[in-house]
C-alpha cells in the first residue's frame, strides 16, 4: 500500500464515518417502508384476482390500498433510500465530510412522520386521487420542510467540495436535488392549493408524475451506475467525454416528455405531440448512456461474480433501457392505441421505480452499509437470496405484465369481446403478478434481516469487522485523467 492510497483510504473512512448515522437512519426507514409498501402492493394485487379479499372494510378497499402502496413505495422507500444514497455519494464525491448530521435526523423524522400521516390519510379516506399526489394536503408542508433540510445538506456538501472536477454522478444528484422540490411544490399548488380548471389538472399531474420518475428516480439510478462501475471495476467510464452531452440531453428532453402520458386524452394535441417528440429525442442520450455504461463493463463481466453491487447495477441499467424503450413505444400512437390504459402502462412506471431505481439502491446499500458501519454482512446466503429473487422477479414481472398488457389492449379494442371476458382472461396474469410480487417481498425480507444484523446496535455486536480490499486503482487513460473522482 503506497502512502497516497493510505491517505485516500483514511479520508474515505472519515467521510463514511461522518455519514454513518444519517445513512443508517434513512436506509432503515426506507427498508421499513419497502416492507410495508410491498405488503400493501401485494394485498392490492391479490384483490384483483380475489376481489373479496379485505373488501369488507373501507380502509382496505382496493382503490385506497393501491394508492397507499404506491405512495409508501415512492415517498417511503424511494425517497428515503435516495436520501441515504445521495447524501453519502455527494459527500464522497465532494471529498468532504457530512457535517452536522444531527439536523438530518430531524429532517428524517419530519419526512417519515409526513409520509405516515399521508398514508393513513389515504387509507382513512382523505385521498386527493391525483396520481402520486394522493396524500392529503396537510402533509405537503411537512414534506417540503423536511426535504428542504435534506436538499440543503446535499447542496451545501456540494458547494464546499474539495475537488476540482464535478463528476457525472454529481450532476445527476445535484439536478435531482433541485428538481424534486420544484416539481412537488408546483404540482401541489396547481392541483390542491389553487387548483387549475378542467383537464389542466391531468396535464399538471402528468407533468409531475413524469418529472418525478424521469428527473428524480432515473437520475438517482444513473448516479449510482456512473459511480459504482468505475469504482468497482477500477477503470474509467468508457467514452466519458460523451457523458455531459447525455446528461443535458436526457434531462432537457425528459422535462418536456410528460405530455406523452396524455395521448388520446381530451387535451390539446400539441401536449401529447410535444411529449412524443421529446421521447423520440430521448433515444440519443439513452444510447450514449448505454455506451458509457456497457462500454465500461466490456471485458470485465467476470467481476460480476465477485460483487453483488455490480450485479444489482447491471440489472438497474437493463431496467433503465427497458423503461426507456417502453416509454418510447408508449408515445407512438399506433402502440399507445393498444397499450394505453393496460398493464403495460403500469409496467412503464414499475420498471423505472423498481427495475431501474430500486435495484440501484439495493446495490448501493450493499456497498455503502459495510463501509459506514465497518461490519461484514452476516449472511451471504441472504444476500444471494435477495439478488436472486430481485433478478428473477424483475424478469418474470416484465415478461408477464408486457404480454398480459398487450393481450388486454387488443381485447379492449375489440368490441366483440365483452368486458367481463377480458377480466376473466386477465385473472391468470393477476395471479402471476401476485406471485412475482410475493417473490420480491421474500427478497426484501432477506434484505431486512441482513440490514438489522449490521445496523441494529443490539444485534450487530456479533457481526465481524470488515477488512476492505483496496479498490482497484483507476487506470486512467490520457484525456480522462482530469475527470477522475474521489
Amino acid at each position, binding site marked *: 500500500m503506497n502512502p497516497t492510497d493510505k491517505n485516500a483510504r483514511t479520508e474515505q473512512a472519515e467521510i463514511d464515518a461522518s455519514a454513518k448515522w444519517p445513512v443508517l437512519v434513512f436506509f432503515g426507514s426506507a427498508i421499513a417502508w419497502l416492507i410495508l409498501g410491498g405488503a400493501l402492493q401485494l394485498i392490492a394485487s391479490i384483490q*384483483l384476482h380475489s*376481489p373479496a379479499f379485505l*373488501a*369488507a372494510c*373501507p380502509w382496505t*378497499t382496493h*382503490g*385506497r390500498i*393501491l*394508492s397507499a402502496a404506491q405512495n409508501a413505495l415512492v415517498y417511503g422507500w424511494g425517497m428515503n433510500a435516495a436520501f441515504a444514497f445521495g447524501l453519502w455519494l455527494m459527500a464522497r464525491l465532494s471529498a468532504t465530510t457530512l457535517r452536522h448530521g444531527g439536523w438530518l435526523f430531524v429532517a428524517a423524522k419530519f419526512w417519515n412522520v409526513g409520509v405516515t400521516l399521508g398514508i393513513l390519510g389515504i387509507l382513512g*379516506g382523505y*385521498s*386527493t*386521487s*391525483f396520481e402520486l399526489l394522493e396524500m392529503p394536503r396537510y402533509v405537503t408542508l411537512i414534506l417540503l420542510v423536511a426535504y428542504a433540510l435534506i436538499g440543503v445538506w446535499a447542496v451545501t456538501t456540494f458547494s464546499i467540495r474539495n475537488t476540482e*472536477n*464535478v463528476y457525472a454522478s454529481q*450532476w445527476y444528484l*445535484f*439536478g435531482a436535488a*433541485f*428538481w424534486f422540490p*420544484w416539481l412537488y411544490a*408546483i404540482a401541489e399548488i*396547481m392541483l390542491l392549493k389553487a387548483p*387549475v*380548471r*378542467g*383537464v*389542466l389538472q*391531468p396535464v*399538471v399531474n402528468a*407533468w409531475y408524475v413524469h418529472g418525478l420518475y424521469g428527473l428524480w428516480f432515473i437520475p438517482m439510478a444513473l448516479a449510482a451506475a456512473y459511480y459504482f462501475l468505475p469504482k468497482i471495476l477500477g477503470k474509467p467510464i468508457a467514452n466519458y467525454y460523451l457523458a455531459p452531452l447525455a446528461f*443535458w440531453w436526457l434531462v*432537457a428532453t425528459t*422535462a*418536456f416528455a*410528460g405530455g406523452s*402520458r396524455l395521448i*388520446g*386524452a*381530451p*387535451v*390539446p*394535441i400539441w*401536449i401529447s405531440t*410535444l411529449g412524443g417528440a421529446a421521447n423520440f429525442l430521448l433515444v440519443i442520450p439513452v444510447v450514449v448512456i448505454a455506451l458509457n455504461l456497457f462500454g465500461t463493463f466490456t471485458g470485465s463481466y467476470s467481476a460480476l461474480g465477485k460483487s453483488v453491487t455490480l450485479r444489482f447495477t447491471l440489472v438497474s441499467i437493463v431496467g433503465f433501457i427497458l423503461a426507456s424503450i417502453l416509454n418510447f413505444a408508449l408515445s407512438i400512437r399506433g402502440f399507445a*392505441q393498444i397499450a*394505453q*390504459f*393496460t398493464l403495460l*402502462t403500469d409496467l412503464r412506471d414499475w420498471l423505472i421505480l423498481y427495475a431501474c431505481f430500486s435495484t440501484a439502491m439495493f446495490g448501493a446499500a450493499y456497498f455503502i452499509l459495510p463501509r459506514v458501519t465497518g461490519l461484514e454482512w452476516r449472511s451471504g446466503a441472504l444476500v444471494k437470496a435477495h439478488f436472486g429473487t430481485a433478478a428473477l422477479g424483475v424478469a418474470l414481472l416484465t415478461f408477464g405484465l408486457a404480454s398480459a398488457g398487450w393481450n388486454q389492449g387488443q381485447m*379492449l*379494442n*375489440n*368490441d366483440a369481446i365483452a368486458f*367481463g371476458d377480458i*377480466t376473466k382472461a386477465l*385473472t391468470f396474469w*393477476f395471479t402471476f403478478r401476485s406471485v412475482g410480487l410475493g417473490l420480491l417481498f421474500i427478497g426484501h425480507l432477506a434484505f431486512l434481516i441482513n440490514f438489522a444484523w449490521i445496523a441494529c446496535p443490539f444485534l450487530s455486536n456479533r457481526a465481524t469487522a470488515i477488512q476492505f480490499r483496496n479498490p482497484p486503482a483507476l487506470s486512467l487513460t490520457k484525456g480522462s485523467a482530469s475527470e477522475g473522482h474521489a
Partner: protein
Amino acid sequence: MKNGLALFLGVFAILGLSWAGLLLSAHKQLGSLSQFKDPVEETLYPQPLSGLADQGRLVYQDLGCVTCHTQQVRHEGFGADIERKWGERGSYARDYIREKTVFIGQSRIGPDLRNVGVRLGDKTSAEDYSEYFYKLLYAPQSVAPGTNMPSYAFLFETHPTNGRQASYQALKLTGKYAPTVGSEVVPTARARALVAYLQSLKDTYDYPTERGLNAPAEKSKEGGH
C-alpha cells in the same frame, strides 16, 4: 464539467422552461374555457353537477375509483371506445370544466365511466338504473357476473325490518345476495351521493364549436385536438 454555477443555471432553466412551455401555455389556452350557450335551447353546457352528485364526486375520490376506471372517451379511430358504447363521441376539454377535480384516469381494469349515466346499449329501464348501481356497489357479482370489482357493502346498512314495511330505498336483492329474512339493505348517504355522481356522468351534448375537432384521428388536422 467544472463549473457549479453553470450546472445550477442549466438545471434551473430546464425546469423553468418545461413549466412555462408546458403548463403555462396549456393554461393560457384552456384556463378560461367557459360553458357554451346553445343558441336554440338557450341552455349552458356542460351543465353543473347537482349538490348531491358533487358530494358523490368526493366519495369517488376518497375510495380511489380512479385507480381502475378512466373517465375519457377516446375519439373514433383511436381505440374502440365508441364501439364499446362508452360514449357517443370522444371527450372534449370543455366537458370537464364542470368538475372541481378531474379523474381522467389511466387504467382500464374496469370499464370507462365517462358516460355511465346514460344507458348506451343498455336495456335496463330508467327506473331500475339507480337500482342497478346500488346492486353493483353492494354485490357486483349480482349484476355483473365475472367482474373483479370489489364489493362496497360498507356503503350500505343492513337493518332488521321488525315487521315494518320495507324501506322504499331497500335493495331488491335475490338469491344468495339477499339479506336474511326480516332484514333489509339500505344505501347510506354516501352510497346515494356516489350513485348520483355516477348518474351525472354523461356527455351527451355535442358542442358545435368542437365538433370539427372530433374527426377520426387519421383525418385530424394539426393543431386540433
